[in-house]
């Protein structure tokens, strides 16, 4: 993800800050001037998965037209919308970048699914009741190697799966549909590829027997009807045509040749795209954000200040996945922080809490939206503050001891303290009870008290982002 030039460029445009990973991206992009859309054919993991699924689709495709060339322009439109939006500080790259899509799909849909199926299979076998000891040791082995220690859950894994499967199913219309017609990263590489100063695929006209095999095998529909020329912006350097040519008329050459081609986007479409980009970002920006929901948006420890966080976060769900096996507090958000915040990680403290000794989310974040913190820093950084709901907390409404929250509070000096007082219970009896309260000066908002509260439903405590401390800022008091 650090290597996707599109993420680097869009983030740069959005934040107006030069980020180091941009350099890697630009090098990779620069190579396109030499070897075209090599990235799409040889590196892109989404492209690889699409190729695999296209193989399954081949049965259905036989004999049907395999090309919808006018759609080629769409990918440029998408690219323009992304860049225009980024220029106006609204980051939407996370929805479209193929590297992000594949990462998100794998972390938030495929991996949990595989884990679930493996686990269910084992449970089913265990319920049969024979070979239990052996099965449990197998289970143990799985847990040590591939399975998470606890089952993992993602809000919206269904959404991510539907998008992923949708992209793969587009292959029924045409092979590599996504890459040919939609992928903005492909569009970026494609535009650079038209400006390449090497030859690439070359056809010896005299040797060509017009058999058309090359055109049929081309995943990208890059080869023109004359079989002798191709669209440089489409060719992904896979060299299938070289391999399939019965007369060896096609060769791959890196000798210098600069012959820029027009890219498939009209001036009118360019203007339309830019305008729609502006309209979309305007609507996103002017959308109403529910103040109650935004007050409960607690970000991972080390998250940058909100506007910059939203620009940097590509919603890859890597932090959510790493968290799911430790504290399990991070979940992809819906509209809690508006459309801009869709799928960004936020704390669901009732489901899980931030492990006091864990700082992995910042370490896996590929874009620096979550700053990698030292453990000692992280343990002092305030994510938010917990508050008691006295109408639900057992000592407060029932006059009985509980103190599970205080027990779990990981701070060496306990951010949850308690008073010992006489209390009149609802039935009129009087008892000495320990009444817990939060010391706002100490609470770092890890949320373990909220997770562990034994009261069903909303619980006796809730977490807000009061006094939160974003990376590089002081806590808000």
């Amino acid at each position, binding site marked *: 993800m650090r290597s996707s030039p599109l993420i680097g460029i869009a983030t740069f445009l959005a934040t107006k800050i030069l980020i180091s990973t941009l350099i890697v991206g630009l090098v990779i992009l620069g190579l396109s001037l030499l070897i075209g859309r090599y990235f799409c054919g040889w590196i892109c993991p989404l492209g690889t998965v699409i190729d695999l699924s296209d193989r399954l689709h081949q049965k259905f495709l036989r004999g049907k037209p395999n090309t919808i060339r006018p759609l080629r322009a769409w990918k440029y439109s998408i690219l323009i919308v992304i860049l225009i939006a980024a220029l106006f500080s609204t980051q939407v790259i996370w929805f479209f970048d193929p590297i992000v899509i594949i990462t998100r799909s794998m972390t938030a849909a495929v991996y949990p699914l595989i884990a679930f199926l493996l686990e269910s299979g084992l449970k089913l076998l265990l319920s049969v009741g024979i070979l239990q000891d052996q099965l449990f040791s197998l289970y143990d082995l799985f847990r040590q190697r591939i399975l998470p220690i606890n089952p993992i859950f993602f809000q919206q894994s269904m959404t991510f799966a539907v998008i992923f499967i949708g992209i793969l199913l587009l292959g029924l219309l045409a092979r590599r549909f996504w890459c040919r017609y939609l992928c903005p990263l492909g569009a970026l590489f494609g535009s650079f590829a038209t400006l390449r100063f090497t030859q690439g695929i070359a056809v010896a006209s005299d040797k060509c027997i017009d058999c058309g095999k090359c055109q049929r095998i081309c995943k990208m529909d890059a080869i023109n009807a004359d079989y002798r020329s191709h669209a440089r912006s489409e060719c992904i350097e896979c060299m299938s045509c070289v391999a399939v040519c019965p007369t060896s008329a096609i060769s791959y050459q890196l000798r210098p040749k600069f012959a820029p081609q027009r890219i498939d986007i009209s001036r009118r479409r360019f203007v339309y795209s830019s305008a729609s980009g502006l309209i979309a970002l305007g609507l996103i920006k002017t959308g109403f954000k529910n103040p109650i929901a935004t007050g409960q948006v607690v970000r991972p420890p080390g998250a940058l200040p909100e506007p910059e966080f939203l620009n940097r976060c590509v919603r890859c769900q890597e932090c959510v996945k790493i968290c799911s*096996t430790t504290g399990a507090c991070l979940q992809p958000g819906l509209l809690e922080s508006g459309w801009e915040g869709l799928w960004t990680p936020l704390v669901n403290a009732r489901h899980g809490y931030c492990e006091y000794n864990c700082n992995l989310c910042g370490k896996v974040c590929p874009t620096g939206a979550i700053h990698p913190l030292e453990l000692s820093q992280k343990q002092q950084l305030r994510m938010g503050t917990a508050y008691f709901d006295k109408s639900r907390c057992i000592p407060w409404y029932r006059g009985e001891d*509980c103190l599970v929250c205080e027990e779990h509070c990981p701070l060496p000096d306990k951010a949850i303290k308690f008073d010992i007082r006489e209390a009149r219970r609802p039935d009129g009896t009087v008892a000495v009870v320990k009444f817990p309260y939060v010391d706002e000066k100490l609470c770092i908002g890890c949320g373990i008290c909220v997770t562990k509260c034994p009261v069903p439903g909303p619980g006796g405590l809730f977490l807000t982002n009061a006094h939160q401390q974003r990376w590089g800022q002081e806590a808000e008091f």
Partner: protein
Amino acid sequence: MNRREFLRIAAASGAAVAGGISNGALFGSYDQLESHARLAVVQNGLPAAMVQKAIEALGGIGRFVKRGDVVVVKPNIGWDRVPEQAATTNPEVVAEIVRLCLHAGASKVKVFDRTCNEPRRCYHRSQIEQLARQAGAEVSHIYEQKFKTAAIPNGQQLKSWPFYADALEADVYINVPIAKHHSLSRLTLGLKNTMGIIGGNRGQIHNHFDQKIVDLNTVIRPQLTIIDAVRILVNNGPQGGNLNDVKETKTIIASIDPVAADAYAATLFGLRPTELSFLVEAQKRGLGSFDFNQMKIEKIDLKA
């Protein structure tokens, strides 16, 4: 209630537990018990040496573990803390007990705990995973599938609760808690360590805690309780984290009576057993006794 009566009640209630622990080794011969200490306290030695001495004083490991037995050694691995923070049982204590059990011919020694923090972190940071495994124990994480709902015939607040099958089915169950501060119950010791083998929503145990914890302990009856007081946590328990709250007491307390062991450990914190209401409740319900005048106690100082 005298000791004889206690043993009779304890044996009867133990036998009442469906699929429960075999108490033969412990309650089979009353006379044999008399010749050994009921409670052993060893101080000022290395953890392993103190464990050896304490078990020796109770009559040796062979009294508890027979050839072929499946033994559960249940430490407190509840928190993601290092041993120096005194929130989890001393790993050397656990390892030594494992070694002794295997030496006595145990076919398998299982070590596990249902942790509060993320299990892998707790197992690793407490060092119990490494040292117990080196000593030959089978250290495994908790499986939801292994919780079986057991009836609590003598329960007052709880009539049934899910327990971990490995603990219910063990031939010998050795409870190895660490002694530390706890805001609700004042201290967490052996009886409360039973929380680590129960399923369900454990937070719900915390109101009417005294009765509920005793209810649970009528089902799980350790043959041997060994309390790690090498370091104790005197404040901000049960997780601690502040090294100023840790006191080095270099003590191992071992007893066949879970109440006596807990009660003696309380004295290290300057508390009288009667100040701990769960111990009062446990004695009243016949789980054991903290009448130190009525039992043979052996105190060993390894420094002397």
